[in-house]
């Protein structure tokens, strides 16, 4: 069996590569496919972080539904052959963002290194999963403590559907 | 409303009852001219509207024909002089009642409290005493005559109701000035008459020059008003009141000759200089002749300009406490008397001669009150009101006649220039006679009114110089000599005016002279009344020393020093102060001789001057303005140009102010202030332009800026 650390770095590499691909790809469809790669890789890291339900959702909702939506739009607008180079900013932007990214990563590492590597959270989640299963662990909380925001999310989605319809309709 | 009822019924409580004087509707005296003003003012507005409508309709109101004049034009004829006549009658009743009573203390009639702030209160109250009564008599009496005269003089003027509205308003304020029971109320009248003076000088405001003359009078008077105000503040600071009664009651607590009382009196005198046209602020009065001639008679000869003399006489205690101020008052007075008299020698405009004569005579009054002869000053004020009003109205009648002559022949010559007159006695005998009476009066010829009043002033000036304990004897000697010299000049320039106007050959023009005529009755009757007063007016105050002699007609005149005794309650305190501080002093002139001798000398000298100048001026060949090519040279030119005082003021005061104003306008206002305002606009605009560079409209830019902001916040949290 491959070690978890190796898997993590594998997924991390895929995610970063996919992300860079999203930014650099000339074709929107290419970008989109890189994005799917990155999202799938992140789903892997979720699994490694014991967030199994979220990993599944990530694949189904993000990499699946939302990305297909994007694809549909690209097709709809016939942008598939848009190879024009629209990247602006160039080397300077890359360097500056490299520096900023380094600082941000450093900071994140400091944050992680402050301890609590094995904080109470990890053990509690493991206990919940052991008790309710991966889905049940989230569902228990979602349908008890956070039931009102959950319902409101439903309304939000409804509004988004209506809004999208209204906006995209030909005759408004 | 209650106070109005109280006003009509003679007021609330008399604060101090003295003798058995019962005031008779004194409030009505003040109220009537105000009502006249309101009524005439309303008519004036209606009249203006009607004329405007007529002009718009293409026609014009015909005022030349008596029958076709509208009611707005005829009603003021009755309202204007009417209210004055009633006010005079009420004053007369009060006067006779006061004659019968022995009033030791002034009667203060309180109506309501006007200002009440903290410890400072000013009541709307009238003060009736001997001084204000004399002033009321002069104002309403002479005022009524001038109102009547105006009916004839102004009858064809399109602004007739407005004229009477202003005139009534002036009388109202003048009465407030003399009847007010406090300096504050006096100041109200003081400012009010200034306003009316401005309105009436600029009565023909469509003429730029006349409107400017009004402004000049108003602005020059402001300088004096500042002095009045400062003096009032000083009084309040030291007495806690500006009412006459408490101030004069406590006045003697001030140090005799101290800095404070000197300052107060000098500041008051600054006010008097402005109002009474003394040096160096006299310049507005000659220009004030731009107003209608009856206005000159009422405001700029008989009443308003004497307000300064009234102020000094009213404040006699304070001035008696300040010998330095008194010396200044007399000094300014005598200098002005001489200075103005010399200018009058060379003036050709009949009204200008009279204007400088007025300035000169006002100087005499200040000499009177300056040498402690307050009663003499008021006496000259009164007689001057008679004969100067007469002279002005006489000149008005002449101008009226001249104007009509030129108007009928469409000649555009100056109807006021004496070079265009000459020989008018044939056309206007009544005016001629009455004006000669006034001229003899002003020249100081016995037994006319001016003789008694002017000689009294001159005598007191000399006597003060000769008195043992009097201050500054040398200075007063100079004053006395100058006053005598000015008296001789007066006799000369007045005679010159009379000769040039009425004697010799007529220079108006052959065609024009056919239109010259005597003034109508409504104009000459007031002249005649004033002529009588100019003859007999002086007899109420024949000096003791002259009483039994020739000047008093050997004792025939009963009222020896009547005015002195009448004003005794007013001046007693001042004389007491002089006595306490200077001791009992005896009067005698610097070069010896008594009052009778000097009076005889001066009247004989004046008579000689008059006789000589008739010969001298009569012997000259005067030519009409259009033929006059004489170039004046030397001192005559200086006199003709009034010593270039106007030019001097223009150079040293007006021009610098104009330049400073221009600087303020161009540099400070347009440059700095407007520049600052514009700069704010430019800076905002520039900033907006710079900031708008960031507003590209593209989302990426906004996202970038947002990111930079977030990084700043994060960076801040990092350290």
């Amino acid at each position, binding site marked *: 069996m491959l070690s978890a650390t190796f898997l993590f770095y594998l997924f991390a590499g895929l995610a970063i590569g996919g992300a860079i691909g999203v930014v650099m790809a000339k074709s929107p469809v290419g970008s*989109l496919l890189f994005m799917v790669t990155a999202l799938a890789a992140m789903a892997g890291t979720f699994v490694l972080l014991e967030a199994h339900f*979220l990993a599944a959702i990530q694949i189904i909702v993000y990499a699946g539904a939302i990305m297909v939506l*994007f694809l549909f739009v*690209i097709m709809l607008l016939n942008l598939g052959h848009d190879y024009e180079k629209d990247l*602006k900013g160039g080397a300077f932007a890359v360097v500056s963002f490299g520096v900023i990214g380094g600082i941000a990563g450093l900071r994140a590492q400091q944050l992680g290194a402050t301890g609590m590597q094995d904080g109470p*959270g990890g053990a509690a989640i493991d206990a919940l999963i052991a008790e309710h299963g991966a889905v049940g662990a989230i569902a228990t909380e979602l349908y008890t403590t956070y039931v009102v925001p959950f319902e409101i*999310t439903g309304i939000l989605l409804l509004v988004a559907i209506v809004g999208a319809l209204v906006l995209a309709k030909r005759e408004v | 409303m209650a106070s109005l009822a109280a006003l009509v019924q003679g007021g609330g409580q008399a604060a101090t009852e003295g003798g058995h004087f019962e005031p008779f509707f004194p409030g009505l005296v003040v109220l009537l001219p105000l009502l006249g003003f309101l009524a005439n003012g309303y008519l004036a507005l209606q009249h203006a509207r009607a004329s405007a409508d007529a002009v718009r309709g293409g026609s014009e109101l015909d005022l030349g024909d008596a029958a076709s004049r509208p009611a707005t034009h005829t009603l003021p004829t009755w309202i204007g002089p009417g209210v004055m006549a009633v006010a005079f009658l009420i004053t007369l009743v009060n006067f006779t009642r006061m004659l019968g009573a022995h009033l030791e203390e002034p009667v203060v009639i309180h109506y309501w409290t006007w200002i009440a702030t903290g410890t400072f209160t000013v009541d709307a109250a009238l003060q009736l005493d001997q001084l204000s009564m004399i002033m009321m008599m002069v104002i309403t009496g002479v005022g009524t005559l001038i109102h009547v005269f105006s009916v004839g003089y102004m009858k064809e003027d399109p602004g007739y109701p407005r004229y009477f509205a202003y005139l009534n308003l002036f009388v109202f304020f003048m009465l407030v000035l003399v009847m007010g029971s406090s300096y504050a109320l006096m100041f109200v009248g003081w400012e009010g008459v200034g306003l009316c003076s401005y309105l009436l000088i600029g009565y023909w405001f469509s003429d730029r020059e006349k409107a400017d003359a009004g402004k000049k009078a108003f602005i020059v008077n402001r300088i004096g008003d500042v002095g009045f105000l400062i003096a009032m503040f000083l009084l309040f600071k030291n007495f806690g009141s500006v009412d006459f009664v408490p101030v004069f009651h406590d006045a003697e607590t001030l140090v005799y000759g101290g800095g404070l009382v000197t300052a107060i009196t000098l500041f008051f005198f600054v006010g008097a200089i402005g109002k009474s046209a003394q040096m160096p602020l006299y310049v507005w009065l000659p220009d004030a002749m731009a107003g209608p001639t009856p206005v000159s008679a009422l405001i700029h000869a008989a009443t308003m300009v004497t307000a300064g003399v009234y102020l000094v006489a009213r404040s006699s205690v304070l001035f008696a406490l300040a010998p330095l101020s008194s010396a200044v008052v007399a000094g300014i007075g005598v200098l002005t008397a001489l200075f103005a008299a010399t200018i009058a020698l060379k003036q050709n405009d009949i009204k200008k001669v009279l204007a400088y004569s007025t300035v000169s005579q006002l100087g005499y009054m200040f000499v009177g009150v300056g040498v402690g002869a307050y009663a003499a000053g008021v006496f000259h004020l009164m007689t001057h009101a008679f004969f100067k009003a007469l002279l002005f109205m006489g000149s008005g009648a002449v101008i009226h006649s001249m104007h009509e002559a030129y108007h009928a022949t469409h000649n555009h010559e100056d109807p006021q220039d004496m070079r265009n007159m000459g020989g008018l006695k044939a056309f206007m005998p009544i005016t001629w006679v009455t004006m000669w009476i006034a001229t003899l009066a002003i020249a100081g010829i016995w037994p006319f009114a001016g003789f008694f009043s002017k000689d009294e002033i001159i005598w007191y000036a000399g006597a003060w110089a000769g008195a043992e304990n009097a201050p500054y004897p040398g200075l007063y000697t100079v004053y006395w000599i100058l006053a005598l010299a000015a008296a001789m000049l007066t006799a000369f320039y007045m005679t010159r005016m009379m000769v040039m106007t009425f004697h010799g050959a007529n220079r108006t023009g052959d065609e024009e002279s056919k239109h010259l005529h005597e003034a109508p009755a409504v104009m000459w009757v007031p002249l005649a009344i004033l002529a009588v007063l100019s003859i007999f007016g002086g007899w109420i105050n024949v000096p003791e020393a002259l009483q039994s002699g020739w000047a008093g007609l050997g004792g025939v005149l009963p009222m020896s020093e009547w005015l002195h005794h009448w004003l005794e309650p007013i001046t007693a305190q001042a004389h007491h102060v002089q006595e306490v501080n200077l001791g009992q002093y005896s009067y005698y002139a610097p070069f010896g001789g008594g009052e009778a001798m000097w009076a005889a000398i001066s009247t004989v000298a004046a008579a000689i001057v008059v006789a000589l100048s008739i010969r001298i001026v009569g012997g000259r060949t005067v030519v009409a303005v259009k033929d006059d090519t004489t170039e004046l040279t030397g001192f005559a030119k200086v006199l003709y140009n009034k010593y270039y005082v106007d030019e001097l003021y223009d150079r040293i005061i007006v021009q610098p102010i104009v330049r400073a104003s221009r600087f303020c306008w161009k540099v400070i206002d347009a440059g700095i202030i407007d520049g600052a305002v514009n700069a704010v606009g430019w800076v905002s605009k520039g900033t907006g332009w710079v900031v708008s560079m960031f507003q590209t409209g*593209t989302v990426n830019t906004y996202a970038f800026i947002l990111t930079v902001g977030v990084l700043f916040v994060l960076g801040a949290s990092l350290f």
Partner: protein
Amino acid sequence: MITEALVLSAILFVIGTFGVLVRRNAIIMFLCIELQLNAVNLSFVAFSRMFGIEGQIFVFFVMTVAAAEAAVGLAIIISIFRHYETVNVDSFNLLKW
């Protein structure tokens, strides 16, 4: 592993931000925004290992909102495209006066 996850999250977020700023294609910008959201999600998941299950629940909500946002955002892009015939944001200057 939490530390590494956080570092990964940061790197992904920066790349996403970079993408939003440098790309002009509206759809790709949108994708980059989704990438940023995912980076944040990763942080949440990592932190949930420290502080408890609430982190994961938050991710759940974020995903919902992201879905709604994607729907509405794409609808907007479509309607803009109808008008301009392009998805290049440089052409959209409605925000400029």
